[in-house]
């Protein structure tokens, strides 16, 4: 890029000036890291709970003899070592080593849904998994509430996350998708604000995925089902809610994967500094300075 610019202009290059802007408020930064802790603990303890009955159904009820939408299991009918499998509807995949059959810390083969490195605790213990899950569910809920109230009070959602009308036009969105696919990210003044895909993703996580996790989680509580029967109906039954809980959790994992990848591509130091101190560096071409 500098070669092209040198060719155009023979005058000394204007060096981009580094400018620190205030990107994240204290509440955003604090709730972000608490949320990371909660989501990690909830995900891993959730997989521990899932392992107690590694099958998902649709409707009000569902147990061993009912048809599962998704199932993890182990086949040890052959003479050889057991084989782990994951089954979606009628498609079965061999997942030995990760799902169904994996190695524990002593390197022994064990039959379990998700492997020890993905669950909390790493050994099989539903009771302790539930304790972690329900304690951090409360922290997660309180943290999200603080973030939402602060976001409304400071107009953060309207100022920073709500896409402008022109950003939502199909052409603008496709342009943004193309930029992302080419790993071309906004620089200079344009980096002051989130791009439309970023805004839509954050809005989707904050206002759809995270609330759906809480609501489907509540639907699995028989006590809450008596208090809020309409919530069970909203998700089509307790077993449907359990399935949606699992799917939404998977989408959060997908989001985190893309989110961390983007941070690494765009500049991890700057992004981490912004989420820790609030200061985010942008580089502006100061041609009329």
């Amino acid at each position: 890029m500098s070669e092209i610019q040198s060719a155009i202009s023979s005058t000394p290059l204007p060096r981009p000036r580094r400018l620190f802007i205030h990107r994240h408020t204290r509440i955003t930064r604090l709730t972000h890291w608490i949320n990371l802790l909660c989501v990690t603990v909830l995900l891993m303890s959730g997989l521990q709970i899932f392992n107690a009955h590694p099958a998902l159904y649709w409707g009000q009820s569902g147990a061993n003899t009912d048809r599962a939408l998704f199932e993890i299991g182990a086949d040890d009918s052959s003479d050889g070592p057991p084989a782990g499998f994951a089954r979606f509807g009628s498609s079965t995949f061999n997942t030995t080593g990760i799902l169904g059959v994996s190695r524990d810390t002593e390197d022994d083969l064990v039959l379990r849904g998700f492997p020890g490195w993905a669950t909390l605790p790493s050994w099989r213990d539903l009771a302790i998994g539930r304790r972690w899950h329900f304690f951090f569910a409360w922290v997660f809920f309180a943290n999200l509430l603080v973030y939402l109230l602060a976001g409304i009070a400071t107009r953060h959602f309207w100022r920073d996350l709500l896409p402008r009308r022109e950003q939502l036009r199909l052409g603008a969105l496709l342009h943004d998708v193309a930029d992302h696919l080419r790993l071309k990210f906004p620089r200079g003044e344009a980096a002051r604000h989130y791009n439309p895909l970023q805004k839509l993703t954050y809005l989707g996580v904050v206002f759809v995925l995270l609330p759906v996790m809480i609501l489907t989680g509540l639907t699995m509580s028989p006590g809450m089902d008596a208090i809020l029967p309409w919530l069970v109906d909203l998700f089509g039954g307790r077993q449907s809610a359990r399935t949606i809980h699992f799917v939404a959790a998977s989408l959060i994992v997908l989001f985190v994967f893309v989110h961390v990848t983007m941070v690494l591509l765009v500049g991890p130091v700057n992004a981490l500094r912004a989420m820790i101190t609030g200061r985010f560096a942008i580089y502006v071409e100061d041609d009329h300075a």
Partner: protein
Amino acid sequence: MRNFRLPRRRFLALSAAGLGGSLLSGCDRLSEAPDFQEFLASAEGLTYRAQRLLGGGHALAREFTAGDVSPIFKVNGTAMPEGEDYAALLEGNFGDWRLRVDGLVAKPLEFSLTDLRNLPQRTQITRHDCVEGWSAIGKWQGVPLAVVLARAAILPAARFVVFHCADVLEQTLDGTGQYYESIDLIDAFHPQTILAHSLNDAPLTVGHGAPLRLRVERQLGYKQAKYVMRVELADRLDGFGRGKGGFWEDRGYEWYAGI
């Protein structure tokens, strides 16, 4: 500036991996620390109070229609209680079986199965949610616990109803492997809390808890004690089993299983 980028990036990645790894082993260590587990368990009180506050005292569990009943209702936990006493009762088709109601009551009583069937009855088609995650729908018939408690006239000091069961789920030297459960008086007097003798219009099979089991519909499956032999009114729970109010509660599960 560009020269420093790679090492710095690698440093960040390595520290993230290291941090992640130590957090995981740290969480495992915390899972073994009794004090920290007690701390995590404190959320149970919050859940209990929140659910009661939101109207959980009186709210009714959803009741379903005959078409919703699960074709097969899974047998979980004990499938056949061991021991000669239960075998003899089963042999006599529970003709000699008596339910004892005692503890903090004015009138300790005994009921035969016929006595219980002659009391006011309640039938409900409800969803059974196992702590493992599965659910099954069944039609239960039995006597509201409130009816039995009213006959025995509970004393003002009573705070909990304890259910003593015939099955031993774990062999222990001190006898704490005997199944038992307990509920508070809010659940005890809830209209859907029944002592059930029938499932899907047939007397309970041994696998489902013959001759009598508890149904406390707004809580998980392990609260639905099978093979109930004795109902005891108590003012505290620390004198039973290992002191946590139930077989599974003594093994780390929540006493309030509405979640």
